[in-house]
């Protein structure tokens, strides 16, 4: 009987602890930081989370997401936001701000906006890295006469084999038009018309049967490594890391699609001050310059760029040589047309 009672008591207290979450009292409140996972989160952990936890004693809990801001919206509507800092891409940095999902930032708590590269100090989000979408190929497959321009990605005669692309219209439609000979300045003008969209899809049609689609940033290097594809679009840092690990991949910088990633604070976060403190720490030029060591993304502060190891610089999207033909994506265009073009894209995929 006694042991039975004991077990009952144990179970009950365990239940209470698990179900209601007993927090041990701590001086600094813990932070939940949401980011993209994989090699990117690894680099953030080494560059920011670990040093910050060491310095302040704040416990950081990491969470991974796949741009699922729906969860944040539901949390906000429910009045229980459990995320404190979130790493967002530029499209969501803008739309999340419009929809009231993020706090409006008080830059006096971070650093003066003039310290950041133009376009990275937004109302609700502050830039953390510059990254780009490039295409890369397996150099074991193409030993000589390697792909060097965007047109090669669409040329299955010269470069036969499967290629992987991101399963979204975003970025792909621009590349399709550019590869079809549209001057960079006219891409969005053209995409705003039905004929332009038709033309982009027609171009994609020419390689459709050779495309494998990827969704998570960690997939492209894996697809290249296991021979599933010979070429793939990817975020440059993921390929950079695979190269560091000894993979014989090469990046083609022609028409790289340049973009930023940002820190944002979810509206109604319970630890706004803690979040600001963390973002301030992560935006410090010295700390910021550390991240490039772990993944080939560039800092967003002028002083930080100067501190990056010159050996690493040529692997970053901001390197002048890499920037020559870079494309900047028009976020407002995508905010307006994403829903529609995504539907069209899905209909096209199903054909």
């Amino acid at each position, binding site marked *: 009987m006694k042991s039975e009672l004991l077990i009952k008591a144990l179970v009950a207290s365990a*239940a209470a602890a*698990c*179900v*209601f*979450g007993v927090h041990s009292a701590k001086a600094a409140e813990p932070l*939940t930081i949401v980011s993209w*996972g*994989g090699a990117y989160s690894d680099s953030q952990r080494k560059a920011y989370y670990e040093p910050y936890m060491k310095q302040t004693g704040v416990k950081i*809990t*990491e*969470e*991974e997401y796949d741009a699922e801001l729906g969860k944040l919206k*539901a*949390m906000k*509507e*429910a*009045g*229980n936001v*459990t995320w404190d800092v979130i790493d967002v891409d530029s499209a969501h940095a803008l739309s999340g701000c419009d929809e009231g999902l993020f706090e409006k930032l008080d830059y006096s708590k971070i650093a003066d906006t003039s310290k950041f590269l133009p376009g990275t100090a937004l109302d609700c989000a502050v830039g953390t890295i510059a990254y780009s979408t490039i295409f890369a190929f397996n150099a074991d497959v193409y030993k000589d006469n390697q792909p060097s321009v965007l047109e090669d990605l669409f040329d299955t005669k010269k470069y036969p084999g499967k290629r992987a692309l991101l399963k979204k219209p975003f970025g792909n439609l621009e590349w399709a038009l550019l590869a079809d000979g549209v001057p960079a300045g006219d891409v969005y003008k053209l995409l705003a018309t039905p004929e332009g969209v038709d033309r982009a899809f027609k171009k994609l049609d020419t390689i459709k049967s050779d495309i494998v689609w990827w*969704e*998570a940033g*960690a*997939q492209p290097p*894996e697809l290249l*490594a*296991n021979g599933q594809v010979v070429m793939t679009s990817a975020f440059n840092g993921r390929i950079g890391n695979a190269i560091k690990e000894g993979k014989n991949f090469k990046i083609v910088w022609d028409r790289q699609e340049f973009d930023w990633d940002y820190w944002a604070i979810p509206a109604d976060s319970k630890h706004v001050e803690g979040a600001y403190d963390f973002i301030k720490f992560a935006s410090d030029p010295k700390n910021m310059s550390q991240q490039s060591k772990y993944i080939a993304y560039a800092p967003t502060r002028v002083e930080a760029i100067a501190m990056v190891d010159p050996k690493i610089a040529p692997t970053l999207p901001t390197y002048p040589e890499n920037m020559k033909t870079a494309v900047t994506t028009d976020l407002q265009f995508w905010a307006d047309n994403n829903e529609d073009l995504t539907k069209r894209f899905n209909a096209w995929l199903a054909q």
Partner: protein
Amino acid sequence: MAYLPQLGLPAYASASERAWRLFFFAFCGLVLLFLISPILIVLPISFNPTPFLSFPKDDWSLRWYEDFFFNDRWTTAVKNSVIIAFFSTILATSLGTLAALGLSRPNFPARAAVMAVLISPMIVPVVITAAALFFFYANPLMVTSQPLLILNNTYAGVILAHTLLATPFVVITVTATLTGFDQSLTRAGASLGGSPALVFRRVILPLIAPGVISGALFAFVTSWDEVICVLFIGSSDQRTLPRQMFSGIREMISPTITAAAAVLIALAVVMLVTVELLRRRTERLRGIRT
């Protein structure tokens, strides 16, 4: 041994019947192979020392098992899975057994309709259940527009969701045990002076115990396997083993998923054996012999 060439056919079977029979055995053999081989094939791959999902060539290693048993991500996932499965099993088994007992009483009103309602969580696609719960858990009390209670991103929420998904299995298994149940045994117990509680403990429980335990096992497995509800309504705090495997495949992180798979297969074997033993016990108790 003269049995096999006969193919289990009577002596009067014709040659074409024999040929057909041979084909039938071969077909069934292939189907059984199809059922079992994918599961067996991940086992050797989990011993591959290289970080690729292929068979080990010259060497084998336990590195992925080491990762599975000692890496925080995986151990936390296992811990979460155990906690959630444990509580939802207890809840589902109690609720389901009570309901099955009630349902199997003679003359239960609107039995078919009630049963249909109770089984429905098993039928409705889990994504829909998860989506509906996602909205519901944001403000489950629904009395005020500002919620007094929120179940999204909590253990309680995931446990309740899994309880919901698991109860149909308990209801089905326990009801099945009770269909052969002789109600006169209860009356006999009562007429001999046993209180209802005593009759339940000494007469009903031993008889339905195998059904309850296999129902509980089904409930456990339902929760242990479930990933969609965790994806929709859980946060990283409630990251379970299947959830971890899901992102493992999606992001192709490492062959640790094969080690995890191997461990889960071992667990499935244990479950299978337990259920089989229980089934035999029920048959013995009821005096049925096969």
